């Protein structure tokens, strides 16, 4: 046993990792240059980005906000950056922003739009976030009538009469439901409300208006335009198409042959034709199918057909959700003795809707984008209608890019936040622990 003097007695200090294995270089090696293909892709990506920035940056940086016409913009840019320089003329947005946002709505009535818009958020808040008190939902239900009155104006008694019809429906239903059951009392309520709207509403409205005149100045539908129009059509179609879509989906899943075939017919027809043909139907054909002499508002007609269009798509999305539910859920609901509507409301729909959230929200996004198509039936959507109006002014003739970019950014913000909200909802409602 000899002494082993070559054994080291103290530990070496740890060495730092090689340069290529730490920090930015490691990250770049792993994420950008991990192989010949990846390296090529990175170089291509950098080149594309640089090219895009080079092409767009001077134009954006030379942008002019204060001018009164396109030629003035060009003069300012030429004076500041040389005669060959190009630049954005944002002045068109600064001068005409009110048209892009509100169309031809009377300027002294803008406060109504602001109130309506603020009200939209107040009404939406309890729907979107369930941490808020549930009583606020009544306000959300009341909101459509208030918004309608604020936007279009006229005597307040019109919306009040509509509301009174719903109150009659509700009162009759709650009074009769325990004795006669849900279907009969709902039918009686509906008939009573319809009779009230048809025959009693107009005289009561006139009487009240002469007794207590209280009205906002009326605004015609052709004064609507820009994002106001897109939001009016989009929001009302979104709100209306969800219940209609649920009904159509239930109809399609139903055991009743006639109900089922009618639902299938409606869904397949609406999904089979382009929205633009439905819009033309609204503007050209509806007059043929209504009693002679009736003509109602173009915006309303468009809302009805856009709602129908979106509802057919939502019905298919919800059908997917219903099909994804295990059979046992239906059987369990039956075993508990729930009737059809109770089972739907308490067991089936909460799960089916949860599954279909991404699809429903992407339908909503599609619907909101499709509101631009109303330009083709003569309404002033922000993208084509208002842009053309602005360009028809000699001062702004030839401004193409700025309006497009402005409108694109606003649409992007709306739709992107909608899709993010749907992701939040999906995460929140997730119950399985996968």
């Amino acid at each position, binding site marked *: 046993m000899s002494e082993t003097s070559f054994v080291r007695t103290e530990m070496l200090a740890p060495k730092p990792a090689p340069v290529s294995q730490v920090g930015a270089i490691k990250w770049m090696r792993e994420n950008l240059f991990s192989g010949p293909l990846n390296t090529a892709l990175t170089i291509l990506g950098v080149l594309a980005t640089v090219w895009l920035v080079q092409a767009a940056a001077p134009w954006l940086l030379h942008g002019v906000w204060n001018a009164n016409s396109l030629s003035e913009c060009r003069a300012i840019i030429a004076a500041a950056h040389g005669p060959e320089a190009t630049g954005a003329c944002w002045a068109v947005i600064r001068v005409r922003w009110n048209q892009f946002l509100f169309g031809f709505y009377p300027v002294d009535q803008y406060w109504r739009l602001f109130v309506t818009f603020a009200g939209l958020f107040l009404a939406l808040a309890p729907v979107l976030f369930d941490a808020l008190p549930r009583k606020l939902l009544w306000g959300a239900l009341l909101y459509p009538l208030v918004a309608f009155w604020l936007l279009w104006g006229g005597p307040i008694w019109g919306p009040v009469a509509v509301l009174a019809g719903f109150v009659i429906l509700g009162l009759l239903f709650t009074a009769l439901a325990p004795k006669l*059951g849900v279907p009969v009392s709902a039918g009686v309520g509906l008939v009573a409300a319809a009779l009230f709207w048809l025959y009693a509403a107009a005289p009561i409205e006139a009487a009240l208006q002469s007794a207590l005149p209280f009205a906002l100045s009326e605004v015609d539908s052709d004064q609507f335009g820009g994002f106001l129009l897109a939001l009016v059509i989009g929001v009302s179609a979104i709100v209306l198409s969800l219940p209609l879509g649920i009904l159509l989906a239930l109809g399609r899943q139903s055991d009743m042959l006639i109900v089922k075939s009618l639902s299938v017919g409606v869904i397949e027809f609406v999904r089979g034709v382009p929205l633009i043909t439905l819009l033309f139907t609204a503007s*050209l054909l509806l007059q043929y199918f209504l009693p002679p002499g009736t003509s109602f508002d173009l915006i309303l007609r468009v809302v009805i057909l856009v709602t129908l269009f979106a509802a057919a798509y939502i019905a298919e999305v919800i059908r997917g959700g219903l099909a994804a539910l295990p059979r046992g859920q239906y059987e369990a609901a039956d075993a508990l003795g729930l009737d059809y509507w109770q089972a739907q409301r308490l067991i089936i729909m909460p799960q089916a809707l949860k599954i279909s959230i991404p699809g429903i929200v992407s339908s909503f996004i599609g619907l909101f984008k499709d509101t631009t198509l109303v330009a083709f039936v003569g309404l002033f959507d922000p993208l084509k209608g208002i842009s053309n109006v602005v360009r028809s002014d000699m001062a702004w003739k030839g401004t*193409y890019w700025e309006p*497009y970019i402005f409108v694109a950014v606003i649409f992007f913000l709306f739709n992107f936040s909608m899709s993010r909200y749907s992701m939040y909802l999906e995460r929140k409602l997730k119950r399985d622990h996968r």
Partner: protein
Amino acid sequence: MALASDPPKAGFRLSMLIYDTRFRSITIQIVVLLLFLAGLVWLLNNAYVNLEAKGKDFNFSFLWTRAGYDLAQTLIPYSNDDTHLRALVIGLLNTLLVSFLGCILATVLGTIIGVLRLSQNWLVARIMTVYVETFRNIPLLLWILLMGTILAETRPVPKDFRLTEAMKAAGEEPKASMWFFDSVAVTNRGTNLPAPAFDHSLGVVDIGWNLPVSLNALAILAVMSASFWGWRRFIARAKAVQEATGTRPTTWWPSLLILFAPISALLYGLGFHLDYPQITRFDFTGGFQMLHSFTALLIALTLYTAAFIAEIVRAGIQAISKGQTEAAYALGLRPGRTMSLVILPQALRVIVPPLISQFLNLTKNSSLAIAVSYMDLRGTLGGITLNQTGRELECMMLMMGIYLTISLTISSLMNLYNKSIKLKER
């Protein structure tokens, strides 16, 4: 005391129509049917009264009258003396053309983007995410208008391509130049491309209804399919020889010969060459001009739909669990075989149904052609014909019927496919 097992009492009370589940569904269905029929009758009656009041009737005979308007892009011969029906067919063909090309291009682009979005490469994945989010969240109409504007506003006028004697003398270059060895010129009017031409053309035959079919194209098609068939036979023969003797005969040069010699000989015999566009005083002549209305619509539809297809492809690939790949490797399959035998068949089952519905969307969205005045079905039948004849009811119903037929055909094909690849569950 009534027991649960008591048989139901005989006799029928009216209230059973509502409260007895055996009868309730019948009651509901009859009520729904009656309401539906009443509504239908009401609508038809209104239509009848309205048509009467306007002094119009309901018939389609206008389709056989002279159209009297010109169309820029026609896939089959057309002049303004032809009927509205022929204009309708031109529009339908234009719709189908842009939809078909759009579907192919969008699928290719969408697949590339979907795969790249899953790439390990941080930069490329981010760029593709930005692409997808940008295109999905901004209306298609904006992309169509933007493409139309880009092509019409940023491209030079044809005159700029001209090199005059004076400029030659002064040693100047024309302001704009053509691309790809002077074969492609993109002006503010259209894209001028070289067109195939034949010195010894076989001519055309009319197969009726003034539909000319080029004999050159038929001959080329016939020779190519014959070559392909011969090549398949040759490869099968080589395989048989290999099975029998163990050595595979040389196949590469006979394959090339079989595939390319006949078609080259035919093209040489026909005197095939490319007819290049030439600049004259005002515009290009020769070659083939693709209208910007078509190009803008095609590019916009492709870019927009590709963003949706990319998401579908990404979801399809992510839906296949990693265990499938590992299991295939454990079985000793090579990566290529793993992809073609294990991953793709499963991923396609997820990808194809939404992909087809994107194809349907693209076809329907092609009706936005109105934004760039591309004469598709809506432009001819639902546009000029409708305005000229004033027959809104007939034109709109016909147009909806045609779109509906296209959609239902595609979706029934999809259902057949779905059935064939469905998981066989027991």
